[in-house]
């Protein structure tokens, strides 16, 4: 009885990989189940049950995006009349054409690309360098400085926006690339994370290089960087993601259409739509919105799918181990 009862959910699905045997288990319970379990190695996790659960989760994670991208190709009227309908023969690019004529999406892409390259380069060089100093050197004030880094992690970033904006006005940087690039280019999280990753590099490796006459920067560049490559790849993807997706600061600091990044363009479109300044009906608006959202998320998805192995291994390398 107890054997049949315990772990009913997990272990009932456990054996469904072999259907006939499984029905026997469920029907008779007790001893046959126990012996069947003994025959197969217990270490093997419930393959079929796992697959079902993971598939359901996958469906939940992918459905909204998939629905949006598919719907963007449907005639606008049908998106709202029959949201779940699916008829590939009636697919059209009308929503995209209308959206591109209404919003400056192309210049948004260019601006995002510029900011991405420059800001990304700054982050990818200086964050590991500072993380290295925090992880492998002792110097006065180190702990206080790192404490300040952690404190800024806890501070809601929106409150820094007012003083930052005043600072930008002071510098005459409003509506410039500097303003989009420099603030947050070496942010607290990147430092925190790089310190974490570099701490795991054995000191013996660095000392050996030192004994061989390697300079301090040489140690960083030739020993640390190659060793932490997975962590760096993780940081790279996170950085690209953060820069690409950031929209609060760019909204505040850009004042002209020509400086707007992609997300600003997108959020402006969304606002125009909710205020209905485009002067179109709900269906057309929904179509354009879904088209714009699809266009905005596709580049990042492509980057991510190409780099996903590095990204996931990077997070695996960087996060706190049990």
């Amino acid at each position, binding site marked *: 009885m107890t054997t049949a009862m*315990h*772990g009913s959910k*997990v272990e009932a699905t456990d054996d469904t990989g072999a259907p006939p045997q499984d029905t026997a288990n469920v029907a008779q319970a007790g001893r046959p189940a126990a012996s069947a379990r003994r025959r197969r190695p217990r*270490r093997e*996790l419930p*393959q079929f049950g*796992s697959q079902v659960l*993971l598939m359901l*989760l996958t469906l939940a*994670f992918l459905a*909204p*995006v998939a629905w*949006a991208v598919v719907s963007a190709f449907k005639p606008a009227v049908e*998106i*709202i*009349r*029959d*949201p*779940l309908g699916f008829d590939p023969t009636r697919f059209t690019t009308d929503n995209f054409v209308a959206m591109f004529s209404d919003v400056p999406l192309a210049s948004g892409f260019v601006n995002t690309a510029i900011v991405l390259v420059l800001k990304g380069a*700054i982050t990818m060089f*200086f964050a590991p*360098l500072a993380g290295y*100093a925090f992880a492998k050197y*002792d110097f006065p004030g*180190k702990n206080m400085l790192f404490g*300040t880094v952690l*404190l*800024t992690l806890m*501070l*809601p970033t*929106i*409150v820094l926006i*007012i*003083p930052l904006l005043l*600072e930008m006005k002071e510098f005459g940087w409003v509506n410039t690339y500097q303003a989009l690039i*420099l603030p*947050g*280019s070496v*942010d607290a999280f990147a430092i925190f994370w790089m310190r974490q990753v570099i701490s795991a590099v054995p*000191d013996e490796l660095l000392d050996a290089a*030192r004994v061989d006459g390697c300079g301090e920067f040489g140690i960083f560049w030739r020993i640390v960087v190659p060793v932490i490559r997975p962590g760096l790849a993780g940081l790279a*993807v996170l950085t690209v993601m953060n820069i*690409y997706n950031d*929209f*609060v600061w760019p909204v505040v600091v850009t004042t002209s259409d020509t400086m707007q990044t992609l997300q600003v363009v*997108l959020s402006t479109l969304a606002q125009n739509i909710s205020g209905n300044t485009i002067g179109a009906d*709900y269906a057309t608006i*929904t179509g354009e*919105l*879904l088209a714009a959202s*699809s266009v905005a*998320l596709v580049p*990042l998805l492509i980057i991510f*799918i190409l780099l996903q192995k590095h990204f*996931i291994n990077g997070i*695996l390398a960087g*996060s*706190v*181990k*049990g």
Partner: protein
Amino acid sequence: MTASTALDTRMPPPRAPRRRRLTRTALRRRLAPYVFILPFIAIFALFSVYPMIFTLRLSFTDWRGTGAATWVGLDNYAYLLTNPGFWSSLGNSAVMWLLIVPAQVVIGLLAAVLLNNAKLRMRGFYRTAFIVPFVTPLVAIAQIWIVVFDQNYGPVNDLLGVLGLPGIGWLTTSEWAKPTLALLFLWKTTGFAIIILLSGLQSIDSTLYEAAELDGASRRRQLWSITVPLVRRTLMFLVVLQTLAVFQMFAEPYVVTKGGPYSSTTTAGLYLYNHITRADLGTGAANSFLLVILVMALSLLFVRLLRAKD
């Protein structure tokens, strides 16, 4: 520290010319960290520390963005602490936390345990699929959420209709808006949580499971007696990270619901932002520091709770 002693013991008693080289490398070594953190310090001081101090000073003043600021001492703090709007924003965030974090820990741990099985087929596919929501731009997802959960034309209510159920005002009623928004957050960040937890699981020594197996421990027993205790530090890291994120949550309600209906989705982060849009900058600054104190206290609490049994 350990590095320097290791170096000292390795060095033989030096001859005269080598001693000079050694001191020079020692000097370089002492200066190196300063050089390495200098660019970071410059950017950090200019664009993080200075605005932070500015905000702290601002929190003791009444300032509307122009003209001179008047010093009001602790008035802004007193105003907030006696203001029901402030407390209800914290309450909204607390409810969001309850809707998000426990569910995320359970789903995350379950999925991570399943993915940690090396024999599992399509592991790579699942890991990629789970992280997709995490990399999608929030603005795009927020728009999708608005359309998907639309009361009249959205596919979710359409699906409910197919099942013969009445439609729900997901984003238009105060009882459903919070869960719908929490679902957005959960949807967007759980993939990241899974990967973080997976990294914790992968560092567990597999011989522990083999030993438990030999002792006849059930799989569920193994989960509670080996996996959960050993993954506790990773869990703590995740819970602290998500607590920070939930209490600072701003963009999601800002884009999707604008804090409504009836302020039901005015989270602590959005409430704070509303002071800024009203140009009540002193109060906004005070609000942010109250939030920091709260979040720090919560973080310490979780660190304590999850470390307690060690």
